[in-house]
């Protein structure tokens, strides 16, 4: 089976990463923001896996596992905060979080 050139993998990862980034920038709903963050992190993971595949060792895959774990932790904390936020403001629109400025 001809292997996929690693450049293609990286480009795919970059596209995913940008998609996630755009999601973070454009979505007002904080849940979607968190999801977009997940996409970004996973895009990074993909890039690691691609690299790992190119060099044929496990470093990148281990990194991917780490990313998964930490993304999970982050999302856990984030969801906890979202619940608190919803309790207080009854909305998940991030624009309400603009009390502090200047």
């Amino acid at each position, binding site marked *: 089976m001809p292997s996929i050139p690693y450049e293609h993998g990286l480009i795919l990862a970059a596209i995913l990463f940008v998609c996630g980034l755009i999601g973070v920038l454009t979505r007002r709903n904080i849940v979607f*923001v968190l999801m977009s963050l997940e996409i970004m992190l996973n895009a990074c993971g993909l890039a690691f896996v691609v690299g790992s595949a190119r060099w044929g060792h496990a470093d990148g895959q281990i990194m991917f596992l780490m990313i998964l774990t930490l993304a999970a932790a982050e999302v856990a904390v984030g969801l906890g905060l979202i619940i608190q936020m919803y309790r207080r403001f009854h909305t998940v629109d991030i624009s309400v979080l603009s009390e*502090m400025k200047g």
Partner: protein
Amino acid sequence: MTFDQMMLLLPLIIVTATPVITMLMVAVKRSHAVSCILTASGLLLALLSLLIVVRYPLQEVTPLLQVDNFNIFCTALILLAALAVTLFSYPYLCNLEDHQDEFYLLIAIATLGALVMVSSTHFITAFLGMETLSVCLYGMIAYPLHREATAQYPMEASIKYLVLSAVSSGFVLFGVALLYAQTGTLHFNDISVGITQGIADGPGSEYFVVASLLIITGFAFKLSLVPFHLWTPDVYEGAPLPATAFLATVGKVAMAALMMRFLSVSGVLDSPAIINVLTVIGVLSILGGNLLALLQANLKRLLSYSSIAHMGYLLIALMTIDSAITGDGSLGGEAVSFYLTAYVIMSLGAFGVMMVVSDSAHERDHIGHYQGLFWRDPWLAVIFTAMLLSLAGIPLTVGFIGKFYIFSVGVETAQWGPLAAMVIGSGIGLFYYLRIVYRMITPLDYDDPLPVAGIRDVISHGILLVLLVALVVLGVVPGGLMLLLESVVQSL
């Protein structure tokens, strides 16, 4: 892993054990005091264990962690700062209508993350450390979440920090992934070979520049350098004071040490493009931070802006640590280490004074709260003034020596632009630091009783005294520390 290597990791092990034991104690009996004491003793023990560590031959423990003089120095600094924050937290949290114990857990785990960061020479550990620190900080920042009156600020700060920090982590990760895909290694030392070649190659060097810049962007975010600084004031303001202090000291030290190690071994500083970028970021941070702080009335925000400027100063020294561009490369590293020490002392002192007069129910973070402090509580006022003057870089304080170091580095490497920015920035900086001093000497015409220092504040005042002594002693006779740092940096 040999026994020797095991012993080298003693501080890490102790700090790991601390939250575990504390958690177990919480399961047995919730007691604010006990949790605090346990955490503090754990940190203290870790600190003392450094005495043991230095008896063993320093070496790389697995490819992931490096224990050398620099690492030991940073570990000590972080542990001291964390210890101080822990002790400051106790009186602050006493009247919190919620469980206080978890805050200490978060401190301990965050410290662990920071310790991992300063020991890492490998992206896996670096990333692990960064994220451990960050995730704990989310919690610390949002800690007084259940207080109805003020809860939206910690929550807002935490969410902002969470999202932005995750984005910046994404940048770092993607950058690392790009490097990894090209070089096939995640170890700083090995990566440098690839980077040096890649950057030197000419065509295609943009790939490495972009990858490196992605990583640097992420680091710059954590150091809150312009233009990645916007989160800083909001997070500083929204977080409870101990969390702010922790973020401002441990957070910055860990990040700066990691960045220093990365820059010094990875070879990215060989690229003039990256030097240009760092110069621009440094100048912008110095000017932007100082200008933003100019008329700020909230002291937490003000100190956050000033931290932007201080990280800008630090960056001037940071970008010279690659020995390739300076004849005597150690000066940059020394300057960074010294400045970090100074910055930890000054920040802890400033936030410490604020913590002493505040509690979780009522934070005194407005400049007006400090009006007439000189006549209401001369002791605190003198400490606060000393800290502010040190931040402004006035002699007799450690801040002056720190600035002197940075200026020396700037002159040595002929960075006239950043030096000019530093002179201008210091001028602007004086204005807002002195504004606070002036408010403190302006008599107050109404009554605003400060909390009376009780028995539980003894430790806080003790720490403040220690900080003041350190500030002056290192400001007047810095020779010893300088010699120490010289040897520390040579191990890099």
